[in-house]
C-alpha cells in the first residue's frame, strides 16, 4: 500500500471512530437498557457482566464454566443453546494494517445461550491459556454443545473434558492443525496474496481514482 491513500484511509477510519465514540459517550450517562439484566445474570452465575453493542456478555472463570451455564439454564431460563466457539487473540492480521496491541496469548471461549420466550440472550466468555486450552464439557448441560465443542476442538485445539466423542467434525481424520488459530497459515494466501486491501470495492460516492480518494466525494450526494 502506498503511503498517501493509506493516510487518507486512516483519516476516514478515525473519523468513523470518533463518530461512534461520541455516540457511546453521549449514551454513557444513561446505562444501556440491558445493563440491569447483564448485572442480574452476572450476579447469579458469579461473573462480570457487560453490554457491548447490544450484546450481553458475561465473563466467568474457566473453572466456573459448567456451573455458570447450569445456573443460566436452570435459574435464568436460558434453555436454548445457540452456539459455542472461540476467538484466538494472538492479534496476527492478514488484512489491512497490523494491530497496535501486543500479542495476547489467550483463547477466549464463547458460548451464547438464549431463552425461547422473551428474546434474552447472554454470551458467556472465559479465558483459556493458549498452550493447553482445557475446559469441562457442556454436553451434560446443553445437549447441543456436542457438535459445537467438536468444532471448537478441531478448529482451536481446545480440549473438552468429559465430551463423549471429540472426533473431527468437518475435517478429515488425518488433518493436522487447528485452522482457526491465527498461527495457522491460509496456504492459498501464502502462494498468492489476496488483492484485498488494494482492490477495495468502491463505495458509493467514492471515485475509484486514488487521487480523488481524499476529496470529499465520500459523501453521498443524494443523501
Amino acid at each position, binding site marked *: 500500500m502506498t503511503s498517501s491513500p493509506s493516510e487518507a*484511509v486512516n483519516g*476516514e*477510519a478515525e*473519523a*468513523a*471512530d470518533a*463518530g*461512534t465514540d461520541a455516540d*457511546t459517550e453521549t449514551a454513557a450517562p444513561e446505562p444501556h437498557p440491558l445493563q440491569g439484566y447483564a448485572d442480574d445474570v452476572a450476579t447469579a452465575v458469579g461473573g462480570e457482566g457487560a453490554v*457491548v*453493542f*447490544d*450484546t450481553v456478555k458475561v465473563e466467568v472463570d474457566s473453572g466456573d464454566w459448567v456451573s455458570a451455564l447450569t445456573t443460566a439454564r436452570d435459574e435464568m431460563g436460558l*434453555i436454548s*443453546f*445457540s*452456539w459455542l*466457539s472461540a476467538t*484466538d487473540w494472538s492479534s496476527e*492480521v*492478514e*488484512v*489491512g*494494517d497490523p494491530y497496535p*496491541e501486543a500479542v495476547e496469548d489467550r483463547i477466549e471461549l464463547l458460548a*451464547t445461550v438464549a431463552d*425461547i420466550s422473551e*428474546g434474552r440472550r447472554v*454470551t458467556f466468555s472465559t479465558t483459556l491459556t493458549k498452550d493447553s486450552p482445557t475446559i469441562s464439557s457442556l454436553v451434560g448441560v*446443553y*445437549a*447441543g454443545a*456436542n*457438535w459445537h465443542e467438536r468444532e471448537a476442538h478441531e*478448529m482451536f485445539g481446545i480440549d473438552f473434558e468429559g465430551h463423549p466423542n471429540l472426533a*473431527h467434525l*468437518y*475435517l478429515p481424520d488425518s488433518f493436522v492443525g487447528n*485452522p*482457526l488459530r491465527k498461527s495457522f497459515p*491460509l496456504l492459498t494466501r501464502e502462494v498468492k496474496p*489476496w488483492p*484485498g*486491501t488494494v482492490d*477495495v*470495492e*468502491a*463505495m*458509493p*460516492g*467514492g*471515485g*475509484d*481514482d486514488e487521487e*480523488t480518494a481524499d476529496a470529499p466525494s*465520500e*459523501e*453521498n450526494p*443524494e*443523501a
Partner: protein
Amino acid sequence: MVVDRDLVRHLSESSVSVELQTEEMTLNIGPQHPSTHGVLRLVARVDGERAFDVQPVIGYMHRGYEKLSEVRTYPQITTLINRIDWVAGYANEIPFVVAAEKLLGLEVPERAQYIRLILTEMARISSHLIFMASYPLELGAATPLFFALRERERVLDLLEGVTGGRFHPNFNRIGGVKPAYGSGSSTRKVIQDLPAGFLAETREAMDRVLEAVEELELLVADNEIILARTKGIGVLPVDVAASYGVSGPNLRASGVPFDLRKVEDYLPYHLFDFEIPTGENGDCWDRWYVRLLEIRQSVRIIQQAIDGIPSGPLQAKVPKIIKVPKGETYVRAENPKGEMGYYLVSNGNQGPYRLKIRSASFSNISILPWILEGVLVPDIIAIMGSLDFVLGDVDR
C-alpha cells in the same frame, strides 16, 4: 453386553418372536443419496427396517468461511456468506451487515431497511416454497413440486430483477443496499433505485404465491397418505429442541411462539402486523404446515411493506474504505431455516478479526442422532426432510 441390550430393545419395539434370528447391517446413507439434500452422510445400524445409532457425518461441504472472512474486507464477505444457505441467500447477508453497522454506529436509511425487509421475506417465501415442494417428493408425491416451484420462480425472478442474482444476490452494502451510483471513474454516474414496476409486480406475485399455497394445501393437506406418513412421526419436544439449539419453524412446530423477528431489531419488523404460527405436536406434519402458514404471514408483511415504503436514499454515508471500529457484537436474525447469527469481533481494521457464523441448519440437524433413534428407514427420510436443512448452512 451391547448385543443383549440391542436385542431387548429390538424385541420390545418390533414385537418379533424370540425365535426369529435377525442380523444387523450397517447402512451408509449418503454422501451421494437422492434425499440428503447435498452431501450429508448418515451411518446407521439397521435391523430390517429399523435403524439405530444414526450418526450424521458432515463436513463434505466445509468451505472454511470463518477463516476466509479473516482475510477479506467487509464488503467482500457478503459474497461469501450468501452462499451459506443458498436457498435463501439474501437472508444470510442481513445479520452480517447489521452487525458491522452496529459496530460502526451507522443509521441505515429507512428505504434501504424496507427494501431489505421485503427481499428477506421474499427469500423466506422462496425457501419455504422449495421445502414445501420437495418434502412431498421425499414421501413419493412428485406433483406438488411443480405447483410450488412455478411460483417460487416468479419470486426468484423478482429477486433477480432487483439484485442481479437469483440465489446469490450480494445486494447488501454496509450502510444500506446496493450503491446508488455506478462505480468507476469511467462509468456514467446513474442514480439507481428499485427497478420500475418492482413493487407492483411483487404485489401481484404475492397474490400468486397465496394461490399456490392454497393449491398446495389442497394437494397435500387433504392427502390421507401424507398425513399417515407424517402425523406423529419424529415428535420433537420443546425442551429437547431448545437444548440442541433447534430454532425457527422447527421450534415453532413444537408449539413455541418464538420468532426473532418479534424480539430482535435487525429490521423494522415491529412496524408490521403479523402472527407467529405454531404447531401443536411437533411432528413432521406440523413442521410442514407451520411453514405453509409462515408463507402467508410473510406475504402479509410484504404487502404492508409495499404500502408503507418511504422514499429516500438507499445508502448511509460511509467512508470509501470501511474500517470497523474495535468491538464485538452478536447479531442474530430469523432466517427461513432458523436462527442465523454472526458474532463479529473487530479490531479496528478493514476485515473482521473473527467472524463466528451461527447457522440454523447446523444446530437443527445436530438433533438427528436423538430424533432418529429406533425409527424405521422410511421415517429417517420423512424426519430428515421435515427439518429442512441445507448442507451449505450446515458446513459453512
